[in-house]
Each structure stands twice: as C-alpha cells, then as structure tokens.
C-alpha cells in the first residue's frame, strides 16, 4: 500500500506543478512495492498491448481513441512505455485504497520491456506493428529484440494482430504459437524501391535465403516470398488501401469499410490499419471505430503544424526507417521549403548517432526544393556533415547547436525567401523543447494589439 500512496502522492504533486504524468511516480512506487504492477494489472478485466519498433505510439493512441467510443479504457502517455510508465498509467486510475477504477487498458509497451510485464497483465490482444532496427546501444542487437518479443508472445494468452507485410513480425507470429490476425496493405500500392534502403528483414529467418520482394511499402515492409522454403507473406485478414486521407479496409468477405484518417502519410495509414484491425478483434463494429477515430487528436511531432510566421511543421525522428517515412512525408509536400534538423544524443534519443547515415537524407537534396538546411542540437555538427555528404551545397547548410537560435534563424530565412514553410525534425529529447519554442513563436507571430491579447500571453507561457 505504501507504494501506491507514494506513487499517487508523486502524481498529485506533478499535477500541482502542471507537469504531465511521466515514469517518475511509477518508478517511485515500484521501488517501494516491486510487485505493484502485477497487483494493479491483475485487477484489469482486459488489456490490449501494442508493441513494435515504429508506429506503436500512434497505433496505441488511435486504438485508444477507437476503444474509448465504446467505454473508458486507460492508456499510457507517449514514451512512458516501460514498467515504470505502465505503473504510472495504472496508478492514475487507482483509489487510495488500491482499487483500480478503470478495468480495461490499452498500453503501448517497449519491445525489451514486454517479457518482464507479459505475466503481470491479462493481455487479450497483442498488436505487433513491425520489427526494425532501433537504438542498438540499448538492446545490443536486432536478434535480441526478436527473441524478447518471441519469448513474451509464447508466454502470453493473447490473440495476435500482426503486420503481415513485415517478414520479422510474420516470423514471430508463426513461431509464437498463438492465434493470429494479419493486416497488410493492398499489393497495388507497393512500389519498386528507388534506392538500396536498409532492409533488416531481407533474409528468411527459417532457412537463411534472401527473400524475394515483388514490391515495397516502406522500409522492409512489402510483398516478400522465400525462394527456398515455404515462408511467405500471408494474405491479410484486414486488407487496407489508402488514398487521399481515406483508408478502405476489407475484412474477409464482409463489405469494405471506409475510414477518414486523422493522421497524414502512408506510414500513418499503416498505424490506422493496425488500430482498426485490433479494435475489430476486440469486438468493436466499424461505426463505433469511425466515431472514435473522428475524436482523435494527433500526438506531438507527427507532421504537426504551428502557426508561426511562416508556418512550421514539427516531426519526431528516431531511427532510419521512422526518419525515412518522415522525409517521405516532407518531400511529398511540393514547393520550396526550409528544413531544420535537431539531433540530440541523450539516452532517450540513442547515444549512437550512426543511424543518421542509414537514413535517406539524400531525398531532401534530390527533391531539389530544400533551399536551406539548418542543423541543431547536441549533434548539430554531425548532422551538418551528414547533409554535406548527402550532396547539399555547403552554403545551404547552417549549423546552430542552440535549438531556439536554430528555429528563429530558420523562420527568418524562410520569411526572407518569400514565406516558405519550415519543416522541423527533432529527436525525442529535443521534441518537447522545440514544441515549447514554437508555441512561443506562434504567439510572437500574432500582430501586436490584436484582440485576444491575453490569450496570446497565456499561450506564450504554456
């Protein structure tokens, strides 16, 4: 009980200070009561878990929005996806006597954390978005991540909802021994790759032969087939086709359902497809899901616009595949632009910045309409070198390690060049500071003396 009290006290204090719930209350509570996650988790009636390398935050948030249309589900906040963060999420809905008030949870769980928490939560549905390379210095190597997810799957009692377009996720589903529903994109939307992108799933994990691809969606996701054994892409139980913000989903022989997506870009269509498939597996009908998605507000840093002068669009980048999907989203918005890239190398960002060289920053140069690239953050200089070798003209690269200085410089240059949009890309620990600076710059962009001056000030200090 002491753990619950301490954790709740910490939560209450953080709220008083105007801070969001982080991992801290959970960490404090777990230190005093190591069995707390199991005690609280055991009170859940049902639990849906989303894991995978990329897209788990957006997928879990979309899924939470859909599920909440049916009744209250508790949900952990972005990034708080290890044991401490999960405990914080449960504590927020626990009474001072230790009773959980909301009995259903949709939780985003870090891949390496999964084996440690799978026995503590009644996981009914487990969504696996994909398995890509991510933060090597934290997990050692990719194979370790695979093994961890597989161990957890085998010990679970869950129905799996798996991205069938990802050979590594498919492998886990085949070896996991649990019932599976696959989702995947329409083969008509697959593209031939224009460059030798990094492909973690390029080899058959059964026999070691190189997988043949008829087409790619993004990263190693695509229409794969092993030439020397029977490993192949499954026909998706939930087949998605994405066009102009609409996702058409065919589930078995049922009539197709169309969903308007509240998020931009093909990689987000994948996340939405995963969320819709999982919500269907949980038992929701399409109308309820549609109503839930309509109330969704996109999380921080996913092509998020700010009304600065001129406009800024903020994006989180964290690994090569995730970064490539952001770069793709940016270059698909045509017209001259300024790009500002802030790279930090703190623990939450990944201390090894090698990944910058696996990401396809060349596309920014090839697009031909990036007028200026401002690099920032603790690794501003590394990023500047990266852009130089990507082929950017040296006089179009400006290195300003200070984040606010870099954003102000980008906006001033964009204004002088005729109000070009600024696309800001930041790693995790630079994201919240960048958002705070951009909110301030939004306030500054409003004409002085305009009505609502007080509102301006409030936003400015938020």
């Amino acid at each position, binding site marked *: 009980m002491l753990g619950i009290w301490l954790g709740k006290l910490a939560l209450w204090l953080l709220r008083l200070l105007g801070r969001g719930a982080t991992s801290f209350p959970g960490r404090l509570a777990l230190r005093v009561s190591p069995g707390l996650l199991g005690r609280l988790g055991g009170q859940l009636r049902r639990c849906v878990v989303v894991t995978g390398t990329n897209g788990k935050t957006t997928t879990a948030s979309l899924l939470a929005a859909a599920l909440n249309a049916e009744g209250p589900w508790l949900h952990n906040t972005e990034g708080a996806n290890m044991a401490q963060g999960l405990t914080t999420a449960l504590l927020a809905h626990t009474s001072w006597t230790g009773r959980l008030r909301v009995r259903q949870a949709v939780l985003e769980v870090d891949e390496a954390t999964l084996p440690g928490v799978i026995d503590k939560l009644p996981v009914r549905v487990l969504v696996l978005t994909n398995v890509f*390379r991510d933060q*090597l*210095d934290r997990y*050692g*190597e*990719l*194979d370790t991540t695979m093994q961890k997810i597989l161990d957890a799957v085998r010990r679970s009692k869950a129905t799996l909802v798996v991205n069938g377009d990802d050979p590594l996720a498919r492998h886990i589903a085949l070896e996991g021994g649990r019932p599976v529903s696959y989702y995947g994109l329409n083969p008509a939307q697959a593209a031939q790759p224009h460059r*030798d992108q*990094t*492909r973690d799933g*390029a*080899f058959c994990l059964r026999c*070691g032969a*190189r997988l043949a691809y008829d087409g790619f969606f993004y990263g190693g996701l695509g229409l794969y087939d092993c030439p020397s054994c029977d490993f192949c892409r499954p026909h998706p139980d939930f087949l998605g086709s994405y066009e102009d913000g609409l996702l058409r989903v065919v589930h078995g022989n049922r009539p197709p359902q169309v969903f308007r997506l509240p998020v931009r870009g093909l990689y987000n269509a994948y996340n939405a497809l995963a969320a819709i498939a999982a919500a269907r597996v949980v038992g929701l009908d399409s109308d309820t899901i549609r109503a839930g998605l309509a109330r969704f507000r996109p999380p921080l840093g996913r092509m998020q616009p700010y009304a600065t002068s001129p406009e800024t669009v903020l994006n989180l980048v964290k690994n090569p595949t995730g970064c490539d999907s952001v770069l793709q989203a940016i270059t698909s918005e045509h017209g001259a632009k300024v790009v500002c890239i802030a790279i930090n*190398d703190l623990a939450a960002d990944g*201390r*090894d*910045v*090698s*990944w*910058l*060289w*696996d990401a396809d920053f060349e596309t920014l140069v090839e697009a031909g309409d990036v007028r200026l690239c401002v690099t920032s953050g*603790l*690794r*501003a*200089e*590394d990023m*500047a*070198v*990266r852009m*130089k*070798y990507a*082929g950017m003209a*040296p006089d179009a*690269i400006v*290195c300003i*390690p200070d984040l606010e200085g870099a954003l102000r410089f980008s906006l001033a240059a964009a204004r002088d060049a005729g109000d070009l949009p600024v696309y800001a890309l930041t790693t995790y620990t630079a994201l919240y500071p960048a958002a705070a600076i951009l909110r301030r710059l939004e306030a500054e962009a409003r004409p002085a003396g305009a009505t609502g001056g007080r509102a301006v000030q409030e936003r400015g200090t938020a």
Partner: protein
Amino acid sequence: MARPLRILHLYPDLLNLYADRGNILVLRRRCEWRGIPVEVQPVPRGERPDLAHAHLVLLGGGSDREQMLVAETLRGMREDLRAAVEAGLPLLAVCGGYQLLGHFYELADGRRVEGLGLLDLETTAGRTRLIGNIAIESPAFGTIVGFENHAGRTRHRHEPLGRVLAGHGNNGEDGWEGVRYRNVIGTYIHGPLLPKNPALADHLIRTALEYAGEPADLAPLPDDLEQAAQQAVLERRLPAARTR
C-alpha cells in the same frame, strides 16, 4: 587516371549494423570532389569478392548470425585474402569485421567461431558490452573520434591504430584501440568511422591509389564541418580526452 578506383564493399546486405554506408559515402564523395573516378561494388552475400580487381576493401559488422554467414564464405578464400593483404591491399574492417580478421572470436555463449587468420589476433567474449563515445590518438592520423559498442575483447600482436584517450578500445584494459598491419586497418570505432575523421579517409584513398599504381597526391579539401564535428564530440562528450 583511366581506370576507376574500385572499392569492394563486402556483404552490405548482411553487415549493415553500424552505418558502414556512411564510410562508403565519404570515400566516394572525397574521390568525386577531387575528380578521381571511383566505383563502389557491393558484394552480395554468399559471393566471393574479386580481389584481383579491387583497390580497397571494406568489411563491416553485423549480428552474430550474419557474421557467421560471412565468416563461412570468406574462410573458403582465406589463402587469396592473405596473399592480397601481404601484397598491400588496403582493407578497412570495423567492429565484427575487425574480429573476423583474427584466429577466432568468441560468442556470448562461449562458442568460438574460426576467423580468417589474416592477423595474429583473437577476440574473447566479455560479460558486459563496452559502449560509448571514444577518442583515440593515432601517431599517423591524429585524433580519431567515434562510437564503440562491442562485447568482444580483442588482443593482438601488431601495431595498434592508436592510444585510447577516452572510452574502452580493444579490450577496455590495455589502453589500445584498433590494429594496423601493412595496409589493413581494423577498429571498433564506428559512428560511422570516416565522416568525422577525414585524415583517415584520405589515407585510405591514398593507399588505394598507390595500390592501383596511380598518382596519389591528394588535393586538400575544405574540412571545416568535419573538424567542427570532431571538436564538438571532444568538447561535449569526451572532455576527459582533451586533458590527456
């Protein structure tokens, strides 16, 4: 020069853990900026490289499983490799590729994988991974900075690449990092290795040109950004390296 400088990139489809693509890109650009024709040939998995027409070979690192597949292929041409190395073929081996040059390397579970035996070097498994930023001082190339992430502890009886200023190096104990033997350079430093260490990149290009029998006078390039990146790592991440 009439013939392009030919760089063989060994098994990029298997050994792509530490952004070796960056090393290739740096070599390619620094040749292009000087008007040196260059051709990078990726050698796909299972295939034996054509050493007779190579002027520089790059061998990167991968996961244990992928590393073993590479070892299997290359062991079949050990004698050719040895002859080429003795004849002065420039070879850059990073992380797993570095371990592969020796007699054996040990996996986490204690199994020993036979190496290529090109160098008098062996790698045992440590209980912890040696992870973090690293700076070394090399007599030939000055300060070299980057990132290391390896469980292997390597020991050898050749000239090291440099002395560790901050970080772990070959084994975290003797204060040395990497190896130099003829025109072979082996190292745990990635990040990738070459972008922030242009002197080392140019050394590889120079020895490759010499090996190709071409004039090897390299015009200097403006390296302000590269130097700034090296300085930034030293100042923000490895202040200890500057006082050594």
